[in-house]
């Protein structure tokens, strides 16, 4: 398949893997964080760790939209969905995310009208088709998905659709990365930077990471060769004693980002003073709400919400996993009490969550498999 196969070529992967190994100083350990859950998914799905030398360790970052939603927000969304005249619409990833009292899937089974959509425009379509119902879109995600939410609100306003609103949970990637850089728990040598977010915000916002924290960051695509090449580029910078922002994903990411998309976000949304992130706690200026001009489409103003803060279950160590401090399997409940079928933490829900990726794709001993294969 064109535009896919060339980025999954095993021959090129082997060659690049050899170059990566050659760039590692013997005995030195290189710890890189892939910020984005999409990268985590690619790494596990293609078994990328088999191609990396022992010296290179990838830790998984906070860039999984579903993983960072706090339980209280899920409860609020279920509260909205439980109003008799409401149709709640959501991306499929959200369906299994546990709140304090069950997930969307449970609420749906108990009678709430919750429908999976692939785009906020589908939610708007449902609103047009059901004029006597109030249709709410559960908006989640980083700057990647915020433009489509914003464009949908603009279209709803232009068309005068009155029964459509957005429950806005959009978050920003830079404050999350900064929180990780300021966390004392973790020593990183560099970042595999998010690709889709950067297609919107561009590469400039990362410059402080290289400048102030002295860490290189390479914006990376989502195919396995993209990630290998990004690791190669990071090692190249480290070997030369440089720390810069580089763009491996130039086929998609313009250095300056997408001004139209940023303008749409700027028009429809405003910065929140602070927002709670699952496992990471409150981070100032880290999320968006609808602006006053679009209050008529803001579910937070239309519906009275419980707005209760629900503490994460004690056993859950999602926060440590999101910060890259713990490997998924180092969490106390990983794979026993917390599994994809009965998740306690959000990282076990989304296919982009580090725990789910490890459980579904990486739950085996590479050493043991190598031995078994050699026999």
């Amino acid at each position, binding site marked *: *398949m064109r535009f*896919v196969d060339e980025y*999954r070529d*095993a021959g090129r*992967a*082997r060659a690049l*893997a050899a170059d990566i190994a050659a760039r590692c100083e013997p005995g030195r350990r290189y710890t890189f964080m892939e910020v984005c859950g999409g990268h985590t998914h690619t790494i*596990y*799905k*293609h*078994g*990328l*760790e*088999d*191609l990396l030398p022992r010296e290179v360790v990838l830790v998984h970052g906070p860039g999984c939209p579903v993983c960072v939603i706090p339980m209280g927000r899920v409860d609020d969304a279920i509260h909205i969905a439980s109003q008799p005249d409401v149709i709640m619409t959501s991306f*499929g990833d959200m*369906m*299994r995310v546990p709140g304090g009292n069950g997930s969307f*899937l*449970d609420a*749906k*089974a*108990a009678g709430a009208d919750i429908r999976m959509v*692939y785009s906020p425009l*589908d939610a708007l379509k449902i609103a047009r088709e059901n004029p006597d119902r109030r249709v709410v879109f559960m908006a989640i995600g980083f700057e990647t998905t915020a433009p489509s939410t914003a464009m949908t609100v603009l279209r709803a306003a232009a068309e005068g659709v009155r029964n459509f609103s957005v429950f806005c949970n959009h978050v920003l990637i830079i404050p999350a990365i900064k929180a990780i850089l300021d966390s004392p728990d973790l020593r990183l040598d560099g970042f595999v930077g998010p690709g889709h977010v950067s297609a919107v915000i561009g590469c400039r916002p990362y410059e402080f990471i290289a400048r102030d924290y002295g860490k290189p960051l390479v914006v990376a695509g989502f195919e*396995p060769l993209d990630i290998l090449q990004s690791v190669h580029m990071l090692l190249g910078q480290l070997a030369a004693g440089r720390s810069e922002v580089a763009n491996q994903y130039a086929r998609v990411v313009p250095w300056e980002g997408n001004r139209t998309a940023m303008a749409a976000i700027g028009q429809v949304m405003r910065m929140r003073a602070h927002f709670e992130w699952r496992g990471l706690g409150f981070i100032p200026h880290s999320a968006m709400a609808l602006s006053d001009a679009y209050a008529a489409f803001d579910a937070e103003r239309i519906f009275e919400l419980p707005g209760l803060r629900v503490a994460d*279950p004690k*056993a859950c160590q999602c926060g440590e996993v999101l910060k890259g401090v713990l*490997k998924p*399997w*180092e969490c*106390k*409940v*990983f*794979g*026993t*009490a917390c*599994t*994809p*079928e*009965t998740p*306690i933490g959000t990282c076990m829900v989304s*296919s982009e969550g580090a725990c789910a990726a490890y*459980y*579904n*794709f*990486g*739950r*085996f*001993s*590479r*050493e*043991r*498999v190598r031995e*078994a*294969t050699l026999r």
Partner: protein
Amino acid sequence: MTAETEGSLDGHPPPAGVALDEDTSAAGVALDEDAPPAPGTPLRDREQQVLDRIARARRRRPVVREERITLAHGSGGKATQTLIQAVFLEAFRNPRLAPLEDGATLTLDGARTAFTTDAFVVSPLFFPGGDIGDLAVNGTVNDLAMCGARPAYLSAGFILEEGFPVADLRRIAASMAAAAAAAGVEIVTGDTKVVERGKADGCYVTTAGVGVLERPVELSVARARPGDAVVVSGPIGEHGAAIMLARGDFGIEAPIASDTAPLHGITAALLDALPPGGVRALRDATRGGIATILNEVAVASGVCVVAEEEALPVRSEVTGVCELLGIDPLYVACEGRFVAVVDGECAERAVEVLRGHPLGAGAAVIGTVRDDPPGLVLLRTAFGGTRIVDLLVGDPLPRIC
């Protein structure tokens, strides 16, 4: 009915080395009682200890924790298996049901017979390559074929919604008649119920079937052993991809038709061509796709199945749709393909026989059976890495059949 059989059920001793854990208290958030790895243990050993602990947790008796049925219980994946084991097997427990194969093998007055049933709720009712009618006939015919039987007689039950067009029902009946004729079976009994508007979605069909076991075969997913080969009879994922596109939710168009077809002819050819015992297991890869079958083999036989991504036959249109939607073709349903586990010595012959049949032109060896690590399906990715292929959790695509 299919399910993860752990071997603890009637007449089936647990696989060697498997401690059966009766403790179901892990339901809530209770921590595993195993002590955490001691600090100072090397990282690799600690990871292995965690993996072992997870393996033990997965062998626990399945418990349904939900208070209500969710769509995940119909996915064919993990939730379905848990439901079957914890509710149905618990209630109906008997040695004929316990192996949870595609059908039951019975001896009636000395005659070896296979018996199976299936329900169809596919949406939409009509789709490229078929409709709910031929799907209902072929589905039951194929379950009998996977038992090694020659399908003989079918029943048909209809649950119809008030207001359903009679013309559509005629069309479904005609396609069932055509499918039955093509498969050489007769529909000899049936039932009809009508429910109020809104209490069903147009038309649901159930079929049951009996078949004759003419060969002295013993087929079971529990019979795979190290050295065996895993063969698939043709390109995978076409039925599921056709249904996804037929629903029109994605605005994607591609020339993909359902592969629904009766498989007893091609399975008979395979069973006849290989020496007795050469075929260990046959499974048609419906809900949950190839991945689910491979997991059933790995768990029931206590072996490791190693599949090669590059060897998997997938048509490029199906690959394309799956890439766009972020779905793995390994989990996408087929209705005219099956997986055969065969003696490794017979692998080439098996592929040759399958390819000689019109329904097996794309047959290929996709993997091998090893002893370690038991209960796991590993995939060697085309990229050169290794990963697990687990059972599906949740249901990305309800009502596929």
